């Protein structure tokens, strides 16, 4: 999976165009991973009360 989008300028040289939009799903996955991680933590943590 690429991290950056690359293009070419009018002279054919490579130029940076931005981040790869495939990373949208990585960002979604990170958010879901935090939710799952916290849900597991809630289930197994000792109660403070």
């Amino acid at each position, binding site marked *: 999976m690429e991290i950056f989008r690359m293009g070419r*300028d009018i002279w054919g040289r490579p130029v*940076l*165009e*931005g981040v790869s*939009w495939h990373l*949208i799903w990585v*960002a*979604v996955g990170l958010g879901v991973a935090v939710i799952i991680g*916290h849900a597991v933590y809630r289930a197994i943590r000792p109660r403070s009360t």
Partner: protein
Amino acid sequence: MAVAADRIGELPARPDRVLRHAGVDRLVHWLTAACVLTLMATGLLPHLGVQFDWVGIHWIAGLALVVLVIFHILRSVIWQRLRTIWFSIAELRTHQVGKYSVAQKLMHHAMTVMVLCAVITGVLMLKKIRTPLLLRDPYLFGADTWGVIYVVHGLAALSAITLVIVHVYFGLIPENRMYLRAMITGWMSRSEQRARVAGIRAGDKHLT
């Protein structure tokens, strides 16, 4: 350690309630949320195959976010106590209780970095498009510099996805409902406030 490193307890609407967020702060929060969600939808959906004329909505929502950010910074610095949102290692060691938990402060700092990166690069990118506000000048920067600006803007957009998912989740879980209600109505009950202080002192950091 006293609770009132902030202004909790000022202007109670009822004796059994404490004011947590003033009306203007709640309004700014929800307007900011509307702007961020609009910016995410208009900026990201076209890359997921949903095609529509998004540029106009995107830059107008972006400018609204700039206004809200400037207002929030001025209000935080001039009318509020900036240290209520400041994070210190001492809080972790001593279980100090302030208006915001450590986790809430860390989330705020992450959002701050994301929003500042997005709005600064977004304002620069206005020079690339036609708007009634600025003269278009796509040659303001070289291609390499524009590339870096696009990358920073894109990374801010990607981090916004993760941060919004996490923020909404922690706002909705049962133990944090009092914070959500306080952001809607402004108040927490005194019993909720007491339970919150006891929880933080006992080491429960309220991972909001």
